[in-house]
């Protein structure tokens, strides 16, 4: 009897390994990468995308729950999610844009033109929908680095006290909203 049980052990190990490795096939390696959840929004002073005389600070954003959406017109997925984000805005979700510019690089001199960028953003938002209360321009990507942003689109859910509750990598669509954001929003509104 004892021997028979012992004989089963390699089989059990085999099954365990199979389950373990099989799960690994479907894991999303981009899910884990974040260090800022549960922490306060990093402090920053950055200009408005449309008007450089206007400066935004982290303290300006406090007081209301909001989504911080990292995006850029160069990013097709960001354009694709504008429509759904606009729907969310119409449902009363406060969305603030963090404009992630790839072309700007101090090493490359003056290829970058802020006015051309503003025109492009304007046209894009008129065509695809404008979900944003306003956009923050992070030319040097310093806030993006402080937030652990690796690209676009990425979205943070921040509560009224400025605490980061969620960090989502990839687009926001109805399925992601239902599964990931809606439960937390529900909890916050109670």
């Amino acid at each position, binding site marked *: 009897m004892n021997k028979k049980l012992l004989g089963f052990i390699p089989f059990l190990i085999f099954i365990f390994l199979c389950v373990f490795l099989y799960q690994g096939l479907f894991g999303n390696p981009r899910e884990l990468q974040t260090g800022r959840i549960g922490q306060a929004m990093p402090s920053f002073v950055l200009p408005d995308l449309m008007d450089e005389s206007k400066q935004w600070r982290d303290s300006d954003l406090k007081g209301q729950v909001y989504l911080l959406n990292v995006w850029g017109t160069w990013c097709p997925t960001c354009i694709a999610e504008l429509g759904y984000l606009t729907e969310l805005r119409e449902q009363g979700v406060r969305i603030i844009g963090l404009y992630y510019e790839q072309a700007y690089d101090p090493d490359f001199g003056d290829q970058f033109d802020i006015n051309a960028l503003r025109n492009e953003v304007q046209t894009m938002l008129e065509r695809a929908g404008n979900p944003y209360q306003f956009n923050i321009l992070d030319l040097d990507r310093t806030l993006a680095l402080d937030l*652990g942003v690796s*690209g676009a689109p990425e979205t943070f859910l921040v509560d009224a006290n400025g605490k980061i509750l969620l960090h989502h990598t990839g687009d926001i669509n109805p399925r992601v909203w239902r599964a990931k954001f809606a439960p937390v929003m529900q909890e916050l509104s109670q």
Partner: protein
Amino acid sequence: MRVLVFALLALLSFASHSAEDKYEFANAERAATFKALTHELRCPKCQNQNIADSDAIVAKDLRDKVLVLVNEGKSKQEVIDYMIDRYGYFVHYQPPVTPATIILWVLPVLIVIIGFGFIVFRQKKASKKQQWNAQEEEKLAQLIKQYQRQEHNS
């Protein structure tokens, strides 16, 4: 022909050298720290490359930040912690020892110990079976005698 190959090789080594000279450091120690860090930190966008290797914009930003931090005189561990604060443990190729990851260190040792334990256990069991006493000695002598006689008879 040989001259041409030598010239090409010389050019190659010059090219790789100038790529590293792009960054300037106050001393050799900082240069070494920077090099080690860019090889140890993982690009969050293209996940199987380190930040020295990757051309992603985020990898460039991380390299620039590492350069700034190293030139401020931060130690290697301080820079790693700075990046982990922002990008999670994911950003460093060497996982830390935490309750969740301790199994990576303990499991191989456990397997070796259990394996050797099993071998010792089996040997002890086997040696126990081969007990020998006077009665068996007698029986053996008898059997030998028996077969010897049979051999003589045949």
